[in-house]
């Protein structure tokens, strides 16, 4: 029965985007179900058995036991049969930051949303996430700077050159034996500097 209920709860929480996690064996008190949300939050669900519910002060014990999950999980749910909904004081559950899911044969519903408990691990996770985002942004910025540097060097290399050839001195005398189209050709000076120009011209 429990197993079937747990399967239904599992499906319900997965439909909310949670991914099932294996139960951590090292935990002193174990939840029945464990999940991770997309943002990295760990979610524990306690599903009491029929026997547990028949004990005296069952609900109070359940709440107290479930609060221990808050050290490990970021969200803790208590899952109870619908008939218990009328006999429990929601304020106590809410006060402890627990969530409440009720179920019967037909429905499963989250009636109290849990609080989020930040842990060191989780904040590490958040920090790591923030660092990763920063690294990614820096990398993007570096790429942008590289692209801009390249484009600037391209623009410099194709800047207007009118009149410049006239200002520079020819590096050597053109032999008379060369064809007539060499005469007064501004390119001779420019081309003779290929590979010897500042980087901005050649990149």
């Amino acid at each position, binding site marked *: 029965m429990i197993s079937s209920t747990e399967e239904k709860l599992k499906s319900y929480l997965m439909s909310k985007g949670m991914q099932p996690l294996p139960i951590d064996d090292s935990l002193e008190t174990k939840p029945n179900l464990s999940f991770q949300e997309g943002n990295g939050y760990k979610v524990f669900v306690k599903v009491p058995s029929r026997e547990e519910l028949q004990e005296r002060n069952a609900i109070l014990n359940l709440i107290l036991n479930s609060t221990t999950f808050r050290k490990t999980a970021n969200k803790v749910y208590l899952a109870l049969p619908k008939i218990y909904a009328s006999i429990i004081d929601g304020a106590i559950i809410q006060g402890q930051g627990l969530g409440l899911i009720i179920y019967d044969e037909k429905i499963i519903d989250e009636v109290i949303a849990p609080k989020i408990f930040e842990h060191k691990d989780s904040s590490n996770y958040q920090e790591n996430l923030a660092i990763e985002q920063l690294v990614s942004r820096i990398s993007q910025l570096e790429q942008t700077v590289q692209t801009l540097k390249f484009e600037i060097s391209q623009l410099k290399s*194709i800047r207007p050159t009118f009149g410049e050839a006239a200002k520079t001195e020819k590096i050597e005398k053109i032999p008379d034996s060369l064809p007539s*189209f060499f005469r007064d050709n501004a*390119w001779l000076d420019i081309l003779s500097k290929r590979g010897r120009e500042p980087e901005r011209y050649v990149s």
Partner: protein
Amino acid sequence: MTEYKGRYTFGIDYGTSDYKYGPIACKENPRIIENRGYFPDKESVMFKAFEKPKDVIVGEELPLYLQASEDLSTRLIYPMRNGVIEKNDERAWQVVYEISRYGLNAFKPQEKDFEGFYVVASLSSVSPKYMYEKLFEIYRQINEQERLVKAATIIPQPFAVAIGHGITTCVVIESGHGNSQLCPISRYPIGNAVLAINRGGGDANALTAEILKDLGYGDLVQQEAFVRRVKESIGLIPIRLEEAMEAAKKNPEKFKAKLKVPGTRIAVDFQENSWMRFLIGEYVFNPNHQMFQSYFTRGMRKPKDVKIGDTTFRGMLDFGEAIVQSVERCPIELQPHLYREIVLSGGNFSWNLPEKLEGIATDSTTKIKLLLKEKGITNVKVTMTKSPQLSVWHGCIIYGYAVPDDYAWNWERMEGWLKLHD
């Protein structure tokens, strides 16, 4: 080294129709042969009887080998017809290999200090990188047979035109038989502003053939050389097409167009249809006039947008719009300077301008200015290259002579010397 390059710089212009080649010692004029190769039918009895079969024949002797005309289309290969050779077009690359070796061999010096030429080859500005790789590989292969190439480099044809013309910031429009290419230049070719047009002298020939058919000379249009002659002798560029046609219709005598082919009985006379002369010139610069629609409707090939290699050649773009589109891909501060130096090159810009028709007809440079004026661009200077047919080769020679020997080839810059041996 400058002294060595002063003797052994070698220019090669792989044009769509012609292959121009020769060392710096050729002075102003390189040798010119058709850029084509012939794959003879080696099973032919005549061929076996007289010759040791060759795979491909190139050069001046090629016409002597031509066999049956019906298979010329498959055996006579013009490798650069579109400016681009497909990577796996083995026959075309074989022609390039043979014609390159033929050219270099023709000028092989006997001097003892000869260690190979500094070869500067020029390809269409839309040639993809693999064409550069293939051509370098061809020079390597040639060198394995015989040390003819010490170092090689390849530059785009419009860049060579700008060098040959001596202008360092300009837009070059090179219009050949098959297509036209526009390339802004400011010390370097501005690669991302290159624009290719799928329209050249061949398209004006096609329109001339249609006009000749309409005038009753349909039997002559099969000979492209004749059609080309009519185009060159009779075709005119109008200042404004409608006004030119109207003037010619009113006064056919003033605009009469006749061509008599010397030594033959062939004569063409446009008579009262002399206004059609203006269609030929207009079509080269702007094929979008409604007058041309009837020719397309009747089956004349409409210049289409085609993708060759990685480049889309635009079919119906008029030259004015093409210049604007190309220049507007350049930095804004450079644009006015580019409009101020537009250089036209290639046979497709050589048109007659009879003195008595000035005011109605015009030349290529003025037509380009008028097309740009329509787009609102007025501060424009357009010039024809001093040697439209040879300026690419001139540019190759200057480039080879001037660029330092130790400026190594770089695939990012697409410039420099690729040394084939020490």
